[in-house]
């Protein structure tokens, strides 16, 4: 594998995110600093409430940064308005949800097309689905697919947009062990094959060895950032 030092792709500098609930102020993210290199497979880990999902939301352009600087691919995301953020999500981000979030009323192919419809430089939906191993499931509805298959569709949907960055929120959280493994393999392969930067959020530190970089979150801060020059393949890890 390529072990050259990678240029910083995602840069967070003293990023804060504060929610206001009535009189109370909740600091979900409280001064996070870390970077992720281009083409890296990064894992953000931490317990519930550690702020990892908020960080993912901020990187994914789903939420505004309260203070600090967040840039992706040399583009400052923290200052973008709602419309720019939408454009950013549309063109640069692929998102994989814990619960897949497929539109139940659309076939696998159509769920992918839903994403490619709005992205000019998209990949062929059918090919993408074939790449995730669902070439024979194109016309199936989500309800006719297993959890793993559904998550593959979700990944295909994210990938077909040809994003710079693939963000995954507990992609295996709703899956059994074996299926989870397959999904992680798919993500890792995708990262290696296409050079897409992948950020995976998980509470399961056992999968940390597969990542190029591991960011541990605690109480809204990045407790530690570990680079892992010799990332293992998923098959080599057991948990």
């Amino acid at each position, binding site marked *: 594998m390529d072990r050259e030092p990678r240029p910083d792709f995602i840069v967070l500098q003293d990023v804060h995110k504060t929610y206001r609930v009535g009189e109370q102020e909740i600091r979900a993210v409280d001064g996070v600093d870390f970077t992720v290199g281009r083409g890296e497979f990064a894992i953000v880990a931490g317990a519930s409430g550690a702020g990892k*999902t908020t960080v993912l*939301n901020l990187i*994914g352009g*789903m*939420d505004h940064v309260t203070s600090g600087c967040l840039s992706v691919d040399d583009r400052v995301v923290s200052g973008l308005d709602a*419309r720019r953020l*939408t*454009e*950013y*999500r*549309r*063109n640069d*981000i692929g*998102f994989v*949800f*814990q*619960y897949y*979030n497929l*539109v*139940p*009323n*659309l*076939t696998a192919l*159509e769920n992918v*097309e*839903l*994403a490619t*419809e*709005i*992205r000019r430089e998209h990949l062929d939906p059918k090919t993408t689905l074939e790449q995730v191993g669902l070439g024979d499931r194109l*016309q199936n*509805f*989500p*309800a*006719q697919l297993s959890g793993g298959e559904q998550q593959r569709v979700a990944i295909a*949907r994210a990938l077909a*947009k040809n994003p710079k960055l693939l963000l995954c*929120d507990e992609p295996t959280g709703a899956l059994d062990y074996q299926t989870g493994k397959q999904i992680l393999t798919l993500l890792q392969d995708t990262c290696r094959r296409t050079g897409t930067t992948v950020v995976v959020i998980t509470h399961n530190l056992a999968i940390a060895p597969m990542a190029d970089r591991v960011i541990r979150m605690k109480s809204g801060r990045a407790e530690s950032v570990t680079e892992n020059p010799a990332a293992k393949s998923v098959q080599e890890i057991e948990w």
Partner: protein
Amino acid sequence: MVRARAFRRDAFREIRRTLPRFIAIVAIVALGTAFFVGIKTTNPDMKATAANYFAETGFYDFRLLSNVGFTEADVEALRGVEGVTGVQPADSLDAVVRVGSSEKVFRVESLPDADGPMPGTAASIDRPHVVAGRLPTASGECVVERNTLADIDYAVGDRIHLTSGDGSDLAAKIATADYTVVGIVETPEYVSKDRGTTTIGNGVVSSFVLVPLSDFRQTVYSGVYVAMANPTGARAYSAAYDDLSAVVKVRLDALSAEQAPRRTLQILSDAWDAWRAASAEYDRSAYDARQQMSDAWAKIADGQAKVDDGRAQLAAAEKSAAARFASAGKDLAAGRAAWQSSETSYEANRAAFDAAVAQAKQLGDYDAQKPAFDARQAQLDAAQAQLAAGKAALDAQVATLAKSKRDAAAAFAATKATLDASQSDLDQGKKDYATQKADADQKLADGYATLMDGRAKLDDLPTATWYVLDRSTNVGYVDYGAAADRLDAIARVFPVLFVLVAMLICFASMSRMVEEQRTYMGTLKSLGYSRLRIASKFLLYAFSASVLGAAAGLYFGFEFFPPTIYHAYSALYTIPNLVLLFDGPFAAAALAAGVAVTCGAALLVAFEELASTAATLMRPRAPKPGRVILLERIRPLWRRMSFTWKVTARNILRYRARFLMTVVGVGGCTALLLVGFGLRDAVKTIVDEQYGSLFLYQATVTLQDGATDAQRAAVKTAVEAETHYAASLDRRIESVTVSAGDGGVSMDASLLVPADPAGMAPFIVLRDRVTQASIVLGDEGVVLTEKLAGRVGLKAGDAVTLTDADGKSVRTKVTAVTENYLRHFVYMTPSLYARLYGSAPVDNSILVDLTVRSAEAQQTFSKTVVTTGGISSVVLTSDNVSKFDDSMKSIYSIVLVLIFSAGLLSFIVLYTLTDINITERTREIATIKVLGFFDREVASYIFRENLVLTLAGVAAGLLAGSPLSHYVIGSAEVDLVMFGRRILPASFAEAAALTLAFSLAVTFAMVYRLRRIDMIEALKTSE
């Protein structure tokens, strides 16, 4: 208890959380209840209003008419009928009154005199409700009715001059022809605009005036009003009233069966007595006449005898005188002969003497003989003297005879002259006698003929017939009741729609709520709460919503709807302001129904869900699987659809309940709007079509009854001389009653006979409404107008009976039915008229077409022509149009109510459905936001479905609205007019556009909701 309170608090918190949804349920229940209650109670409200009015004014229970009028004895007999509390004899006559530029027929009716109709009764019957001024108290005072028609508008102090209208002497019937208006009234007898028909003027009674009964000079009463005892206080239009009325009617009919023959007998015996007297009178006068004539003749004969006698005597006297004169003449002749012979002998003696003397002288013997000679001389002289004397005597005798003759002739001549004079006198007398006799004979013959005529008339004296008319024969009473009943017909349609939509809305909202609360329900269930207990939260929610909604609906339904609808009718009926009733049980039932529907929906949905185990409930519900839709199988079409449209199609067909609900709700909205606009079109069509496509003339000039030929010619000249005159058509118009002749429905109509049927088209168009094919008026039968034919139940080819105002009936065939909207007409050719009625029709009006089609031109025409003698009225089409427009404007308030309700309905439906749609798909929406959909794209992703559903609803609404509006229009129609049957294309477009506009309004309100959806939702677990 504590738990229960917590439970309630939870339910109310739920309400606060889902306030818009809650309000939607409240609103739809309110709308449905208001509509149902509103339309349903307008009928009893209207009837109660009328019943109050009838009770307050003492509206008659029966009105008795008779072909021979009523005598005091009849009135007395009526007073004795059981159950009759009031009897009020009345008189009436129809008179022509000039109002402005035209002649109108007024019905002059009696008001009971001040001392009351019947001693001992408290109040009179049919008391006029005085709007202004007072009731008449003296002869020559009258009251008029309040603004019946726009052009009859009297004020107190105005004067009214009555004319008979048919040349008869009005003074024989009424004390004065000049009346002063002292008051303006309304009467229960005339609630609708219909005033009946008449045989004078234009055949239609325009208005009525009330004058004191004592002003009438008729010997019998023309009618009697009867009030019946009403101990139970049965109200007008109620079954109890009808029953009561039926009982008394039977008694009145019985009296009529007894009293009418008595009257017939009385009339018969009176007539016979009169005839017998006349007969005796004739005999006496005939005898006298004959006696006189014979006396006259005897005198003449006597005179003649005397003259003849005189002549005979004269002749005898002449004869004897002639004889006497003849014998006297004879004697005279004899005397003269004797004297002649004496003279001759004397001459001879004288000559002999002279000769003897001469001889003697010669002989000288003279001396000798002288003594002898002397003696002889003396002798001779004596003889000569004697002769002279004799001659004188003879001459005297001749003179005497001549004188006698002369005298006798003179006497005879005098006598003859006298006789001749007598004779000529006699001759004159004879001549006079002859003429007198001829005269007297003629007179007697005439007298005899009259007598015989009278005798013949005795054989067909009228049989007295009483007509006992109850309220069901009063046009106003029946019309008004029917109008109120028509609302019930409408009430059968609309509430169904609203209840249906309300149910759907409740189902949808409750389903959604139950869905949202699955975990909560599961938790409670696992804690051991009973199902009812758990469901009671939803029940409480539904109950509060429906009680609030139904209460609001009841309020609006009882307070707001009836006056609005009534307002539309108020232009048509003269009745005081609406009485609003509150029907407690009905309100409770409506409330219960609203609550039951809503709570039923809540319970049904909750129990269905609660059937699952607690564990199942606590797990998220498996999303409804996607399915291949039918549309997909049409590959060429599916392939050509853009991706977003495919998604839309899938989603629409996936949520079929929502699809159905939107189609019903939005369709209902469109249908309601279409009904509203259709109603407007229907009313607009009446005038537009009637005066724009069918009646093309611009003025009607009506001639007076009995206008002379010279007047007719003058009118014609005046009409044709008018500046804008284009063409004209003479016609006859008269009132007829049309029936199928089988005892079924009969309708009043105008019989219209154009002088030139072939030339009618430029003035009146006869055509089939559906095919628009023109109809030719032929001699083989009549053409009826559409509504008339429909109501009487006639179609082309049927036999029809036409009865005129005098009761004469003719029977002919219906050849065709023609499009017509206002009033009812029977069209007939002059030759058919002549054949049926035995005389050619006398034209009594002229239809005029002007070169300029404008109200101004019509006004000018009217002003110029109306002054011509012989014209009864000039009616302008523009006046008719504006008059009708005014009376129909009121219907627009109903249209407004419909538009408002429709808007509210579509708003509630679309809001609720969109709201549910959005909450149900929050996750999906958040996901596509994360995918990078712009707000606009997100909106169109969701609202494209709304648009399609709305369009489908609009289409369904337009389809369903068409028959619905026909039903409503048919139900709302009044007898005198036919509403338009065609909804204009523009109205379809308007209904569709308005519905789309409502839907757009909801969409815009919802765009904000979409924006607010947080993308973080996409990360959460399934609900």
